[in-house]
């Protein structure tokens, strides 16, 4: 389904001013601290981003002024907390251009969102001999939940291969979509390599065959404008803490007709309409999937993060980060003995690399002494590491507050690594 003119008008590119990185940096208090006596150069944003003051303030304000449970009390504080929490839902709906607020389910993070879909939608649809298709680029959180439900139902997990640049082989993926395929789950952006997958095209291939698609958007939402209706995916999962919000809150977007059909994921308070010992009537969407007291403060503060991003403009964020990624890629490529892992034509936010004869863990320790924080390891994507024949990589991942000077500090740190190992 193509987006309607109405949709395009309401979410199309708004002319946004260029990002002023000096002003942005001033919004993130942690960026002024030092590590081992050096200014912090935080390049581990794919693991979690730092938080702007407005998000920290929202957390403090909730606990200082409005702390209360939601959807329960008739008292002032509970009403204020409920309104603020639900306001985030409405902001998220607008932010990703979902059709309705009830399609926005709050969860702990992208991992829980995927598990929810696997354990309800997946379990309901999978029978022995059926198939779930994923890609070879997936994070463990978009592999293991499907393995679990496939094992339970006697279904088979099939994996679309990637090429040496780290791009999904779309023709091979298409071949895997057969009469037994009940689900396709794919990442929007690879956390290990930064590859931006052609999700709209992938959805279209699945759509033709009536196969529902879940998109793991954890690494995409902080870097680009997301429009779930333009993508036409059935589910879209992401985490708050990778988009400048707190940990403990994330989002599952699902098309209302699917969410209506799905059984609850967990039972408890807040997800019911009425309970007797004989029978429970579940609450309407989205509350059917929101059993128990959620991370209320985090949910409210996620709304502040969305406001912050919208004020900057996701198009400006994407333009700035793409330019910085280009700079980082060139700068790193000039380091002797450095090999970039993942050279897809379209990437976002991540440069993964290895150095000749030096293990990523040693790189990480030495860079840390220089105040430079990178992730080293398998990035919860062991199959990707296996494909490239490396036990691990070092990964520099970018956010909207990173600068060219920080990339230069990373490169200087890598020269120090070479010095230690000379």
């Amino acid at each position, binding site marked *: 389904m193509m987006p309607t003119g109405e949709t395009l008008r309401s979410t199309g590119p708004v002319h946004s001013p260029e990002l002023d990185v000096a002003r942005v940096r001033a919004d993130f208090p942690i960026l002024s601290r030092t590590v081992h006596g050096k200014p912090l150069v935080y390049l581990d944003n794919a693991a979690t981003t730092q938080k702007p003051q407005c998000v920290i303030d929202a957390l403090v304000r909730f606990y200082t002024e409005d702390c209360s449970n939601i959807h329960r009390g008739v008292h002032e504080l509970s009403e204020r907390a409920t309104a603020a929490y639900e306001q985030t839902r409405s902001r998220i709906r607008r932010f990703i251009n979902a059709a309705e607020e009830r399609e926005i389910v709050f969860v702990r993070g992208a991992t829980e969102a995927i598990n929810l879909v696997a354990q309800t939608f997946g379990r309901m649809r999978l029978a022995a001999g059926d198939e779930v298709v994923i890609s070879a680029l997936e994070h463990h959180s978009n592999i293991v939940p499907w393995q679990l439900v496939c094992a339970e139902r006697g279904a088979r997990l099939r994996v679309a291969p990637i090429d040496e640049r780290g791009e999904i082989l779309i023709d091979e993926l298409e071949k895997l979509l057969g009469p037994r395929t009940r689900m396709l789950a794919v990442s929007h952006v690879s956390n290990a390599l930064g590859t931006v997958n052609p999700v709209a095209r992938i959805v279209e291939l699945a759509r033709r065959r009536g196969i529902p698609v879940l998109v793991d958007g954890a690494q995409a939402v902080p870097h680009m404008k997301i429009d779930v209706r333009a993508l036409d995916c059935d589910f879209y999962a992401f985490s708050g803490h990778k988009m400048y919000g707190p940990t403990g809150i994330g989002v599952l977007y699902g098309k209302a007709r699917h969410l209506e059909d799905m059984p609850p994921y967990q039972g408890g308070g807040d997800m019911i309409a009425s309970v007797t010992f004989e029978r429970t009537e579940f609450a309407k969407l989205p509350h059917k999937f929101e059993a128990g007291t959620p991370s209320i403060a985090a949910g409210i503060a996620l709304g502040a993060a969305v406001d912050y991003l919208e004020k900057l403009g996701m198009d400006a964020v994407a333009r700035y980060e793409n330019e910085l990624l280009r700079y980082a890629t060139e700068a790193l490529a000039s380091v002797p003995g450095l090999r970039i892992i993942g050279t897809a034509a379209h990437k976002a936010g991540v440069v993964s690399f290895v150095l000749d*004869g030096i*293990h990523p863990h*040693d790189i990480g*320790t030495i860079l840390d002494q220089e105040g430079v924080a990178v992730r080293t*390891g398998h990035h919860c994507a062991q199959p990707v590491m296996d494909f490239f024949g490396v036990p*691990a990589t070092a990964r520099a991942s970018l956010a909207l507050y990173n600068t060219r000077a920080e990339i230069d500090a990373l490169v200087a740190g890598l020269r120090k690594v070479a010095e*230690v*190992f000379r």
Partner: protein
Amino acid sequence: MSELRELYQQVILDHHKRPRNYRKLPGANRTALGHNPLCGDKIRLYALVEDGRISDIAFEGSGCAISTASASMMTESVKGKTAAEAEALFERFHDLVTGRREAGGADLGKLEAFAGVKEYPVRVKCATLAWHTLLAALRGDQDTVATE
């Protein structure tokens, strides 16, 4: 830089570049697999135990400088020892890399080079992986040893 030099001492870098006893051991009667999931380090350890003593020992695998050097130097220091002696040595080594024992007070010989690890708590696992794997091999454990 000086703290880094404490960690990456010359002897450690040397054993990283040219690990000793890095090979298969066809006649081995003890073997174990060690894995550090945090950084992907993997080690396969082989030992030949005769008359209660480690008469030969070797390893293969991939890892960071600390884990490779530690494995290399471990094989050199336990050759000829009984299982009990090797275990006692590991206890002293463990105390050294976790800072529970001062360098120089434990009679660890070349292994004292790992004293710098105590300043890097996340690297303790790298320094001890080969030792944990050795103990598993000597005990005859079949499961992969994981440091997590």
